[in-house]
């Protein structure tokens, strides 16, 4: 029933293949360097490129890892194959084209030819509008589906969970921040 544990565990390695767009603060328009975008089985390179960029704009690398660091879009690709409903799959696969036509309508240019700042602004506006609109179908719904999945995947990754302790061994109900950090570090290593 779907992705086996073996395949999923192996995505950690594959994920790195698609990271050429992540974490480059000074990057401007997306360079469609298709040779860098590998390891995907459902997304074609153009789709993967846009989704990698969108995920990176949503959750950029700061002092903590971003969606690009956590292999989020590669994992999303795996979900399309084994997990997603036909409706979600259509939403996600259709999203880059919709985004592009939205960009053309709003600012008169293709999404990928915009500067990073302009792409972020466009996405941020869309983010506000999508949630303000509630549960309306269409482009907003596709955006919400994508966002929900990107956030879930990123925030369940190991890099995004520095406080996760598999076996705490005890429960303490009242500790300081320093004690908490020490307990976590002690239990994790």
């Amino acid at each position: 029933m779907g992705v086996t544990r073996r395949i999923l565990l192996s995505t950690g390695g594959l994920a790195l293949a698609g990271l050429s767009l992540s974490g480059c603060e000074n990057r401007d328009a997306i360079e469609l360097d298709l040779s860098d975008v590998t390891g995907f089985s459902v997304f074609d390179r153009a789709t993967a490129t846009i989704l990698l960029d969108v995920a990176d704009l949503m959750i950029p690398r700061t002092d903590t890892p971003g969606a690009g660091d956590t292999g989020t879009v590669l994992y999303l690709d795996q979900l399309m194959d084994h997990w997603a409903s036909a409706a979600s799959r259509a939403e996600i696969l259709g999203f880059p084209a919709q985004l592009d036509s939205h960009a053309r309508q709003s600012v008169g240019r293709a999404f990928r030819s915009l500067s990073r700042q302009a792409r972020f602004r466009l996405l941020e506006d869309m983010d506000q509008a999508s949630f303000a609109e509630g549960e309306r179908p269409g482009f907003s719904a596709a955006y919400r589906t994508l966002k929900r999945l990107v956030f879930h995947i990123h925030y369940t990754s190991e890099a995004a969970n520095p406080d996760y302790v598999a076996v705490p061994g005890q429960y303490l109900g009242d500790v300081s921040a320093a004690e908490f950090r020490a307990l976590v570090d002690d239990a994790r290593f």
Partner: protein
Amino acid sequence: MSEEFDAIVIGSGMSGGWAAKELCERGLKTLVLERGRHLDHPSPEYTDFEAPWDMEFRGMVPEIYDEQGRYRMLKRKGWTYRNEIIQFFVDERDHPYSYPEDRPFMWTRGYQLGGRSLTWARQTYRWGPKDFEANARDGHGVDWPIRYDDLAPWYDHVEAFAGISGASDGLENLPDGEFLRPWEMNCAEGVAARNINRSFEDRRMIIGRGANLTEVRDVHAELGRGACQARDHCIRGCSYGAYFSSLSATLPAAQRTGNLTVETDSVVSEIIYDPLTRRATHVKVVDYHTREERLYSARIIFLNASAIASAQILLNSRSEAMPNGLANTSGQLGNYIMDHFGHAGANGRIEGLEDRFDFGRRPTGIYIPNYRHEREDQAFVRGFGFQGGANRQRAGHTGSRPGIGAESKASMDQWSPWVLGIGMFGEMLPYADNTIRLHPTRTDNWGIPLAHMDCHIRENERAMIRQAEQDAVEILTAAGCKDISSVRTPDDEHVLVGGKTHEMGGACMGHDPATSVLNRWNQAHDVDNLFVTDGACMSSCGTANPSLTYMALTARAVDHAVQRLQEGGL
């Protein structure tokens, strides 16, 4: 072909495991018949060691199930709809049941060795004297033929073996037991509890009592059970055996006597009755895979398939002598179905503890037991308690609200304030016309008529829901919470019976064979060697989680049955 045993137990879940243990330990050759698959303990199906990033689909149930119409009710239940535990829950597409279209019923099942003892939330409270007196006092349902004192020694017995953590709180209607060390309240709960306990005469906030081993005593260590590691992954199965389940505790205890036989993949369809001897002679099983029928016989039969399933089996055990189902001369079989109900609660912020944290994942919460018994100044009888807890988390990683980019990410990495939340657990009255019946035309894959549930709450429960919302706000205000928000299901919205997974009734205990199905020993009035000790036997539903009471009733009934057997009375 018919194989013979001293005793047969139908169902290996919470109550069936206890029946098997107690019967085997008294020297009876005992057969457990379980419709689900075999599970080892620890089982390869347990997922307790999987970190969030190791989980298949990161814990998300495949969306394709929606397209296939699978697990609709489990999805509706919400918090249990997780991919890493879905193997322990039943898909009603494979195992259908029915209800009137405008009154859906939620029947959350676990068909495997150990039943729902694998997935329960382990909250374990004795019922108090008032719970057993309630039917007699206000006239709803049939009077319990026992009182708290009848059960008290059996609560002692099951608590010591299962291992229940808790504090001795000294409350009138929530009796203390022989507890293991309690979990500690976190700092926010500590503040709230002090404030609540100071503000009210009648309302007490205590630490939740639960079946997790905060200490390992000899009785637990002998079975290979280890101490709880505060992971709160219990619902995934615990490789340490640190919470009580049939797999970690009762079935291994039964096994070591050498008296236990377990047959899994064995769907019990009916119990066969001999009118001449007034005895149940055989249990008929349909093989889960081959659908081949088999018969087993024994001197006594314990029915522990869970409340609804046990009533269904009895209703399906029709004979010339008992055309309306086995043990149903009263006509009450399948009546008085109950469940606890929620549908009101509140939460609020506790301030001043921004620099305090908790470490570990405590597998229990807090409890505010029912404080509304026997009050004259309210629009309903009985009452409700609250369960909940306080926690703080990173401000939230949800992709279901606005916000993207570095700034939003930074704010998501901040710790949220402490938030205390409480939700009601209301006592539903026993209504004779809240029923389970056999569907007149539809059968399952094993040829058994579907269970058809027709249940709804009435004005008494609606009044409680309204009151509980007010009380929740009052309690959180007294606790010192800020920004309190409350929720309540509106009066005109259907309240799904079964939502709390505490189904009770269907074969109620009572004094009188004309108005009840079972006597004070959980023995069928009509059938001497038949005992029903799961939730079906409950004459009312109280407000506290019921499983500990099923365990105590089971151990008590076995003790009685075996004594009768030895005296030649069965």
